[in-house]
């Protein structure tokens, strides 16, 4: 057991646990964040994606010791001011979900993508979401939501 310091959604947290504990488990159990979801435990499905230093990645296979120096954002932190983030709003507007279990991870991949490439092509969107699985078959709506979010963010930036 060791004390670990984590920067999550803009705040610093101290957590005492085994250094090999997956970041996902710390986020859900210690920080009580419901947004990152457990799907596979091997970084294969994307349900647990969070943004680590600007890059969307799995948190189920990232040991907490390795996440200590990083700035971590989860879906729970996107709407910190109360209003939904443009990407969340776009997912709602496009009704881009069925069961919604993959949604958190999809949104985090999208936020990371749009930060790096504010005007992606449809193919670039699909490539960026390749590590996120959806079992309900809502891919087409998700792609539409990402493209709509890009337009919305561009319009906000232009204002």
């Amino acid at each position, binding site marked *: 057991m060791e004390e670990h310091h984590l920067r999550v959604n803009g705040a610093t947290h101290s957590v005492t646990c085994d250094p090999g504990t997956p970041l996902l488990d710390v986020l859900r159990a210690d920080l009580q964040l419901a947004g990152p979801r457990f799907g596979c435990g091997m970084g294969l499905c994307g349900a647990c994606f969070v943004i680590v230093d600007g890059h969307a990645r799995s948190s189920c296979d990232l040991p907490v010791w390795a996440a200590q120096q990083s700035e971590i954002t989860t879906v729970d932190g996107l709407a910190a001011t109360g209003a939904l983030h443009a990407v969340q709003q776009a997912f709602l507007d496009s009704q881009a979900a*069925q069961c*919604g279990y993959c949604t958190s991870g999809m949104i985090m991949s999208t936020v990371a993508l749009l930060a790096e490439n504010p005007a992606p092509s449809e193919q670039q969107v699909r490539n960026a*979401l390749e590590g996120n*699985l959806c*079992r309900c078959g809502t*891919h*087409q709506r998700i792609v539409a939501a990402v493209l709509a979010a890009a337009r919305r963010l561009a319009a906000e930036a232009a204002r």
Partner: protein
Amino acid sequence: MSAPTFPAGASTETQPAAGLPPTLAANPRLARWLGFSADGVVTIHSGKVEYGQGVWTALAQVAAEELGVSLSRVVVAPVITSDSPDEGITSGSRSVEESGASLRQACAQARSLMLGVAAVTLGTTAERLVVEDGQLTGPDGTAVTYWSVLAAHPGLLERDAGEPVPEKAMGSWSVAGRSAARLDLPDKVSGRPRFIHDLRLPGMLYGRIVRPPAPAARLAGLADPCLPPGVILVRDGSFLGVLAGADREAVQSAALVAKAARWEVSETLPDCDDLASFLRNAPAETVVVGEHRDERAAASAATTLAAEFTRPYIAHASMAPSCALARWDSGSLMIWSHSQGPFALRDAIAAGLGLDPAQVVVQHAEGAGAYGHNGADDVALDAALLARAVPGRPVRVLWAREDEMAWAPYGSAMLARLEAGLDAAGTIVSWRQDVWSGGYIGRPGTGGQPRLLALSHIEGGQPIPAALDGPPTGAIGSTRNAVPGYDIPDLLITRHRLLTMPIRTSSQRSLGAFLNVFAIESFMDELAAAAGRDPVDFRLAHLRDPRARRVIEQAAGLADWGARPRSESIGYGIGFARYKGVAGYCAAVAEVEAEYDIRVRRLWLAVDVGRVINPDGVINQVEGGAIQSASWALKERVRFDRTAITSVNWDTYPILRFSEVPQVQVRIVASPERESGAGEVAQGPVAGAIGNAVAAAVGVRVRDLPLTAEQVGRAIEAG
């Protein structure tokens, strides 16, 4: 003014009024279906559960419409077996049809009762009241609300439904029939606690199960696993579980127990690469599921074709491993579960543990998407078994991904042999279809048996009996849609249900329809080719039903069928079915590119599912069904060796990814007919369309799913 009096509702002992929707007749008390709270909210209680298909939103629309309140006032209560109407299993695309009909009539009766009271209060007649968002206004402008009426007459809905009252005509709908945003999505895009996986109860312990390494395995010994202090080991026969204060500790402890366990494993699984032989040779029960004979017509056959089609075992592979919570309190057992059948689960758990069903309450909590009978029910019993060791404390059990993949039931592998005769004019005159399959009906309670996984592992436990297949019809089980929907004079359809179950099978979205429609639609193209006819024309020539013709014509029109430029390695194919033979109609056209691998680039679908409550909900379900069907048809196959399942995570059980997902266009064909559900209509037709498009693209018929480049190569070699 003195309060008007009303005759008491009929008691529940009397017969329900004739003509009520079946689930309302079975659960006639109106207050069981809806309630009005002081804050201006209407709470509806359905027996159907939400698992991402959007049924809550559609049912809320039905209630809002019938009552005349805005949708934002309607809240859907989670199913709880102690309180909610028992509407059986949420499956078979029947929720809007069944629960929608009952809620609509219950709301219509509630509305009528409240209007009656309001009319007396306002000194007018019910007909002269104007209803707007729950406010009832008389001709003189004075008004009451549903909520004020019920505050004055709190027992008004504590009565049984009476004779059916008229419901709003579809033409006057303003909430139903229009796309509504899903009620559950704001929580889901915000990452708020919503799923059963997020439920935390005070004092809760975390459980994990240590499953055997193979379907046929027995615990032969357990060394001391040296568990950390405070961790509880639960052992009952070959059932092993651990309980800890934190999930991470439970996971680590389960790994220690797994290391300390010694198992006897048997080779009981069939040859993964020759499922057709296994299916054909396993002991089976043979029944005719469809027959109408016309020997003269059959004798007019000038050409006879025969072919065999197969599908492998397919996993539900929900995004979330199954999860449940349980708590024992002095002889009673509370369960939280994402089961599709909370009432059946309650009874199965009671039977399995020797309890009275009255001692067990199951409350539904949302899980990830379910596409049939997954691990939801099994994990509920696991939680109950672990919770029994710590009375009074809630226990949460989460399955490992590997256990969800290996232990949840699969949709069975199937073999279909088809034979048809064409007369000299190219008309189908006879059709034979034999279907070999494991049963598709194996949910808890089927055949009076609990069928919960842990009951096969505990001391004295018996293997789960082979899944059943329902009554011998073309509407259910492995022979769902085995009876072609075409006009064929001489027809004989036979089911061969396997009597052994080396690999556990049960319900999976569309049951046998996925393979049967793939086989029938593939074979229709083979017959069309033999008759020298265009596939669309050939189908229409065998269909009189105007609704069937319409969806085929519309899908073909959307896809610009026949006008698309043909090119090397690009193929188009069509598939059609009326789901279950009696429900929704769906036609699909697929565009496939077969250059280095098999890619479905586009799908065009037309559906007629009767009256539509939430058009965007229907489109979402059909799009999703189409993409999932494409994933099954192109990629999915559970692999195993002679002892154990080897497809245990996404790397060993790949599904369709973003780069592979086709563009899907869905058109709803408007219809005034009864609602018939949209969740499963696309599975078969899309598989058929893709199969036909692959054949058009590569020039060879591939009859074994999944349609991988490897299978195409095999078909070319064999051809």
